[in-house]
């Protein structure tokens, strides 16, 4: 505890807590957590963005709360305690979305509620918040949330562009029904990439590309 007091709020090791999950320790592509939601909500970028935001908020806040309580929670019932806190936060997020972003919340439907079961949340609580101070846990939560969001946005970008010919809802490739833009030349949207199996393959390709550039991740 004594050396944490000497550290500044944004010391090197603290900054690393945020940045490591972007690449070297990415929750989806390296820790392989939270794959299910990455497949489910990445058909459109807008939804993926809201989902990433919600998950980030839940991870960061639940990390802080668990970290504050970490010396009070008996280890035998810690999972239940964690679940209660995560569930509380998820319900709050759900209500906020319903109040301020009703359309998106409708489209995300059950997947907001399923943040409770998102492995990243529980994984970070177990692996980090139970053993670290609230500030560090907060940074770790933010970092992992953003790392999750990066992969989500990349996958959603590819799926929305190839599957519906749109980016963030804008029809940049033209109108498929009126046959304008690229569609006038016989281009057709790919129906397979909308389906979940192809999302899994896209995640796989993202992991492949990431490992090609980041040699640290290659297991011997």
């Amino acid at each position, binding site marked *: 505890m004594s050396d944490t007091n000497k550290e500044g709020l944004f010391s090197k090791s603290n900054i690393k807590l945020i940045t490591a999950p972007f690449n070297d320790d990415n929750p989806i592509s390296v820790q392989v957590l939270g794959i299910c939601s990455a497949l489910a909500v990445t058909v459109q970028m807008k939804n993926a963005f809201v989902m990433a935001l919600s998950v980030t908020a839940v991870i960061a806040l639940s990390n802080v709360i668990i970290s504050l309580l970490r010396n009070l929670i008996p280890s035998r019932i810690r999972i239940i305690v964690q679940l209660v806190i995560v569930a509380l936060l998820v319900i709050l997020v759900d209500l906020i979305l319903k109040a301020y972003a009703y359309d998106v919340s409708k489209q995300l439907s059950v997947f907001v509620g399923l943040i409770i079961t998102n492995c990243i949340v529980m994984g970070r609580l177990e692996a980090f918040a139970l053993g670290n101070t609230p500030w560090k846990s907060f940074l770790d939560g933010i970092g992992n949330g953003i790392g999750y969001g990066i992969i989500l946005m990349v996958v959603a970008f590819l799926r929305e562009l190839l599957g519906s010919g749109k980016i963030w809802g804008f029809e940049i490739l033209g109108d498929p029904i009126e046959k304008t833009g690229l569609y006038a030349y016989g281009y057709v949207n790919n129906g397979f*990439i909308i389906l979940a199996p*192809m999302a899994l393959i896209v995640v796989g390709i993202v992991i492949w590309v990431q490992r090609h550039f980041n040699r640290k991740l290659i297991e011997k």
Partner: protein
Amino acid sequence: MQFLRNTVDKLKKPFLKGGKLERYEKGFQAIETFLFVPNHTTKHGAHVRDGIDLKRTMMIVVIALVPALLFGMYNIGYQHFSQVEGSDLSLIHLFGYGFWKVLPSIIVSYAVGLGIEFAFAIWRNHDVNEGYLVSGLLIPMIMPIDLPLWMLAISVVFAVVIGKEVFGGTGMNIFNPALLARAFAFFSYPNFMSGDKVWVSDAMTTDGMSGATVLGSLAQNITPSYSTMDMFLGLIPGSVGETSKLAIIIGALILIATGIGSWKIMLSGVIGAVVTVFAFNAVGLNELMNFSWYNHLMVGGFAFAIVFMATDPVSAAQTERGKWMYGFLVGFFTIMIRIFNPAYPEGAMLAILLMNAVAPTIDYYVVNSNIVKRKKRMKTNPLKTA
């Protein structure tokens, strides 16, 4: 011959170690071994079971495909011009029409697929994979004739990169690459891959003229108007290579005679399908269930798939008893999908892909049961085995 050998040797120099084009050695090697049987044998993966090298194996499959391909070309012309009332064209004319229709897709398939194979071979410094010689011809043969070429190209890219290269190349792939290409196109562009307009080249919508495949009309509970003989000879709408059962049987005989295709898989596949059809005939609730067993074997891509794709030495079961189970289940699932899922009139593609995934499990249990059996034998009768 000697002249060609000398030329190849002369061209080879810059590709050898220390030469200027050393990086592209694998690419050159692929062409060289294509022309001449190499002195060394293939080391990894698919090829530990035979005396001839993998390129020669693949060439025999290509030869076996030729009858079906030639007939397919003729049938494309036949189907196209039979839409036009009173057209009376010579055989060579019909064949010519089909030939020019099929040729571009074969060229695109080989160019894209081999391009990727060469690029990967040079990038990762492994030998160029021979498997694509067959896949490259199979892919255009199992697609509808009017599929746009760019869709074909994307399907090939998917099949080669995701189906083969990520697993480590020929001999390592779980799924049959040609079927993977078809499955990709099927789910990506359903409008171009199913329905009653895609199976005849430039289908017109004249009344009374249906371009639906036999299975397609059966799925809509309509009795097809083709005779069993038409189905056997292949004068029905369908993918390029799948229609003629006669040509497929010739191909099957070539594969069996040379020992390259497993007759066990082909036979058990047919048995599996026939047994399943008998079971459904007994129920007989609709057109599909009443369809007789010999007609079931005649229509759709089942015959083509069981001869040329279920017998793929890489993705099929490897053990001898496993082959019987694998083939039987391919036949069984094909008929199940045909009858229970009218959205997918032909089930052979999905049945084989499903069984590709299960094949290693089948092998595992066959090998294990053999080990258990031998152990038991050793226990009960130690002298005989020792």
